[in-house]
């Protein structure tokens, strides 16, 4: 392969530059020595003369060296390094421009990179396990109704029997139970009942002891548990002898047989594993399982899919009617948890948007580069006159762009990494649970390559486009023109549009950030109508069945009775604590999102089908929250039993729904959704309370409270009035609860005012991101506007000078010059105000307050000021020029 050898030789020569130079020098030296010796020997010349003649025979040493260097391709390299040097020098010489351009490009690249990385992590994340890409999931798909159908144990058994190309087919079912240790500590853990083979799928050996094995799966066998690294460290203080200790998981005594290494939370974010014991007799209709395995070495996904299809047909042949269209399908492992197909289009569009954003930023920077390049127009003209081709000049400007973009890419990648990390931390905080184990806060190599592509794309825009424009007409004409002064480039009609749009966007960006921030602050500091910071909140959960799935209670009534008993016992014990002033519960706590329900009013057709927010609360809810009943009465325990539905409404209900009329005694019908059946029973409004932080999808807050008993509530969220700091009672609550019943699960233990704030963490984060983006957009825009306008005016220095010399009135000249920039800026500001108004309307916000309106006006004036400054400064400079100097300008 001749070309291959040639390329290799060239590359070797190029990269071993130093070595090549020294080799050449050595060869030349030896040649001259040998020749001189030869001459001394053959012709008997004295050494000096021999050396002289040898030199002559050799010819010009430097010329030959140059020829060799040229042949090595070093000429190209030298030119390149010269361009790089020049580019770096320019970056240093215009620090402000460099700063602004790098900040802008870095932001563009960071945004693009984040978008791409998020898309990768959602659509095709790499599983950080040995050959993770070969781990696949199997799920049921209903082709008729187009959705996923849960797989039960019978599916799993059938698939395991029939699939040969997916090895170690395993299943898992997630659950939460309290892990109760000898010291009496009882805390909920995220556990999974999992096939022993799943550890082979993951290919992660245990840190201590063993993983689960097939023998553990026998029903009736000893109960065993493998614990995760976090539990081992936190609950067992990293005890090296933990294997063999017994613990309770919910109701079951179990023996620790192994500890998994740090970071192992397979299949998603689990921290404890017990064997999945399948009861073949009752497999059909069992709770849903996750089914997964490893593609065997010999099999391609297509082959495994074909095998599964065939198996699916055999299984379907004997299936019941409702599952007629249900077929198993093979999917990438992560699709078991999250069907990225649904969001793929959205993510792709998002990425297109981000790349467009990057291109817009690059276009902006290109404007700056263009303005700078045109100021070097004469230099470029002289260079082309001296023989530099157009390609050569374009290449040089491209290298300049590349230097800038590379700097920006470095910053951008660091920013992207930081944003990903903080973003993920925020998401974990917001959801209250760890993200899946395959999430990664570092950038994948593909993303880095993507960043490089963006960098080159950006460099092309900011380097090549200005260069092409500047070198478009012949160098000769340019040279003449620039020495003759005037002329050259002028920012015409297109630029007017560009500048106007630029100003409009710039005006809009911080306004949007401001509104968003205001919304976040308003949401966070919303008055919930009682001192939420004096309450501790927690969610209670009761174990319904054993890990194997056997219900603890014979009937639903028995379960309800148990819940009622445990709840009242817990309340009795908690209230007896000295620092507790009261306990209540609701299915949703103030300061959090509440669902919309539909209501009908008894006598008014127009109120039919209106949305109100709804919560189910304990009878003592308002009393414990210290929210006085404003009209009518509060709930009583009797309201739970009377069978006659009563509700209490809030003040917003009175104003929004009833227009301020007295609600007490009126009747309403409530249903969860518009299409749910209209209930028979009418409920009577017995009282009115103040608004208590019900949060819906919009700013409307009309709400209805229904009384409920603990066993009927869809979720049991406690609010405990604590004397002193609520958090101080948290540990005690855990203890009391585990004394009442060790299996009683306590989740989301935090001060009540933090419950609402949690939901705002993400919004707060977004608000900060938006603020940074706005600042960068503002900086970039102002700089661009300033430099473009200043440039436009500066180009007319000669014209101004001549006019003034010819006797024109200075003020008139100033007016003529500034007319255009002022028009451009005014147009932009007008357009920006329209956009700001649209955002206002879109957010469905109240009209801006006087202060906000004043801020916006000041803000537009500031923009106007900067733009005018951009025109005035160079114009004044031009007006001050001596007529004689004018003719020398640009010469």
């Amino acid at each position, binding site marked *: 392969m*001749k070309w291959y050898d040639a390329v290799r*030789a060239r590359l070797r020569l190029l990269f071993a530059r130093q070595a090549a130079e020294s080799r050449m020098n050595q*060869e030349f030296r*030896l040649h001259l020595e040998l020749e001189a010796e030869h001459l001394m020997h053959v012709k008997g010349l004295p050494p000096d003369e021999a050396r002289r003649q040898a030199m002559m025979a050799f*010819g010009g040493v430097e010329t*030959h060296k140059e020829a060799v260097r040229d042949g090595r391709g070093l000429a190209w390299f030298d030119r390149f390094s010269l361009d790089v040097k020049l580019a770096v020098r320019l970056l240093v010489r215009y620090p402000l421009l460099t700063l602004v351009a790098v900040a802008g490009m870095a932001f563009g690249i960071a945004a693009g990179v984040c978008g791409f990385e998020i898309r990768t992590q959602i659509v095709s994340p790499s599983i950080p396990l040995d050959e993770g890409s070969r781990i696949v999931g199997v799920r049921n798909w209903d082709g008729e109704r187009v959705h996923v159908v849960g797989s039960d144990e019978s599916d799993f058994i059938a698939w395991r029997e029939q699939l040969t190309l997916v090895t170690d087919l395993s299943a898992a079912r997630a659950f939460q139970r309290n892990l109760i240790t000898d010291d009496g500590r009882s805390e909920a853990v995220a556990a999974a009942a999992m096939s022993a083979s799943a550890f082979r799928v993951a290919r992660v050996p245990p840190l201590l002891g063993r993983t689960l094995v097939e023998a553990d799966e026998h029903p009736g066998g000893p109960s065993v548990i493998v614990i995760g690294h976090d539990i081992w460290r936190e609950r067992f203080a990293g005890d090296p002898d933990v294997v063999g200790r017994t613990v309770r998981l919910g109701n079951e005594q179990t023996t620790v047989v192994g500890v998994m290494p740090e970071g192992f939370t397979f299949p998603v974010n689990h921290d404890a594993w017990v064997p999945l014991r399948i009861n073949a007799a009752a497999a059909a209709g069992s709770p849903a399982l996750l089914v997964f395995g490893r593609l065997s070495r010999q099999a391609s996904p297509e082959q495994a899919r074909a095998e599964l299809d065939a198996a699916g047909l055999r299984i379907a042949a004997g299936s019941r009617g409702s599952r007629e269209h249900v077929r198993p399908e093979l999917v990438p492992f992560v699709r078991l948890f999250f069907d990225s197909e649904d969001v793929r289009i959205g993510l792709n569009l998002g990425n297109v948007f981000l790349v467009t954003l990057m291109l817009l930023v690059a276009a902006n920077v290109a404007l700056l580069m263009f303005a700078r390049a045109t100021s070097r127009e004469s230099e470029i003209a002289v260079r082309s006159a001296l023989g530099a081709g157009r390609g050569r000049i374009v290449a040089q400007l491209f290298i300049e762009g590349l230097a800038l973009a590379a700097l920006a890419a470095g910053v951008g990648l660091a920013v992207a990494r930081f944003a990903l990390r903080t973003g993920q931390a925020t998401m974990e905080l917001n959801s209250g649970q760890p993200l899946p184990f395959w999430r990664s806060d570092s950038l994948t190599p593909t993303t880095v390559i993507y960043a490089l592509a963006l960098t080159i794309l950006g460099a092309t825009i900011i380097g090549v486009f200005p260069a092409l424009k500047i070198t478009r007409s012949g160098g000769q004409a340019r040279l003449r023109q620039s020495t003759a002064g005037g002329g050259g480039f002028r920012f015409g009609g297109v630029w007017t549009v560009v500048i106007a749009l630029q100003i409009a966007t710039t005006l809009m960006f911080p306004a949007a950030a401001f509104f968003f921030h205001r919304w976040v602050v308003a949401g966070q500091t919303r008055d919930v109508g009682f001192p939420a910071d004096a309450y501790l909140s927690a969610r209670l959960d009761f174990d319904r069945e054993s890990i194997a799935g056997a219900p603890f209670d014979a009937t639903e009534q028995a379960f309800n009775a148990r819940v009622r008993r445990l709840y009242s016992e817990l309340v009795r014990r908690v209230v007896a604590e000295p620092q507790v002033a009261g306990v209540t519960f609701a299915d949703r706590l103030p300061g959090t999102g509440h669902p919309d329900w539909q209501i009908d009013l008894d006598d008014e057709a127009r109120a039919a089908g209106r949305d109100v927010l709804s919560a189910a609360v304990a009878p003592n809810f308002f009393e414990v929250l210290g929210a006085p009943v404003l009209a009518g009465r509060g709930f009583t325990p009797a309201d739970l039993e009377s069978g006659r539905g009563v509700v209490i409404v809030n003040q917003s209900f009175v104003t929004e729904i009833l227009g301020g009329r007295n609600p007490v005694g009126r009747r309403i019908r409530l249903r969860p959704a518009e299409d749910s059946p209209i209930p028979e029973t009418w409920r009577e409004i017995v009282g009115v309370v103040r608004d208590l932080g019900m949060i819906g999808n919009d700013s409307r807050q009309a709400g209805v409270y229904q009384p409920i008993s603990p066993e009927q509530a869809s979720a049991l969220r406690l609010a405990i009035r604590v004397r002193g700091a609520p958090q101080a009672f948290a540990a005690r609550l855990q203890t009391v609860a585990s004394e009442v019943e060790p299996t009683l699960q306590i989740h989301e233990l935090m001060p009540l005012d933090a419950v609402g704030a949690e939901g705002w963490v993400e919004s707060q984060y977004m608000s900060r991101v938006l603020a940074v983006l706005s600042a960068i957009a503002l900086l970039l825009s102002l700089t661009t506007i300033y430099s473009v306008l200043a440039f436009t005016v500066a180009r007319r220095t000669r014209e101004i000078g001549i006019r003034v010399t010819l006797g024109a009135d200075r003020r008139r000249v100033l007016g003529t010059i500034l007319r255009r920039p002022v028009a451009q800026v005014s147009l932009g500001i007008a357009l920006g105000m329209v956009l700001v108004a649209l955002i206002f309307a879109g957010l469905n916000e109240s009209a801006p307050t006087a202060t906000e309106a004043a801020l916006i006006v000041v803000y537009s004036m500031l923009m106007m000021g900067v733009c005018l400054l951009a025109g005035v400064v160079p114009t004044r400079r031009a007006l001050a020029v001596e007529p004689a100097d004018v003719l020398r300008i640009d010469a």
Partner: protein
Amino acid sequence: MPSRPPVDALRGSLDLLVLKTLSLSPMHGWGISQRVQQMSDGEFAMNQGSLYPALQRLEQDGLITSDWGVTDNNRQARYYRITAAGRRRLGKEVESWNKFSAALEAVLKTT
């Protein structure tokens, strides 16, 4: 004084001469220049230094390779060696040269 061929022809044939020289045995730069002059009977009087860009070119084209070696009187020198590709090229060049010179001779004879 013998007449000299034009420079271009000399340059083209320099490659040929280098390949021919190296086809006999590996050699360092000065040795090659000596061989070329001997073989051409002093006809190709050229700047000895011009040899090196030619050697580099041939090496880049994969027709020759080079390696450090030691001369008879124990000095480090770069030794060039012809490759298989180089031999093939030499064969082709010699053949076409022969054809060309035969044709030229025929033309000159008829005149």
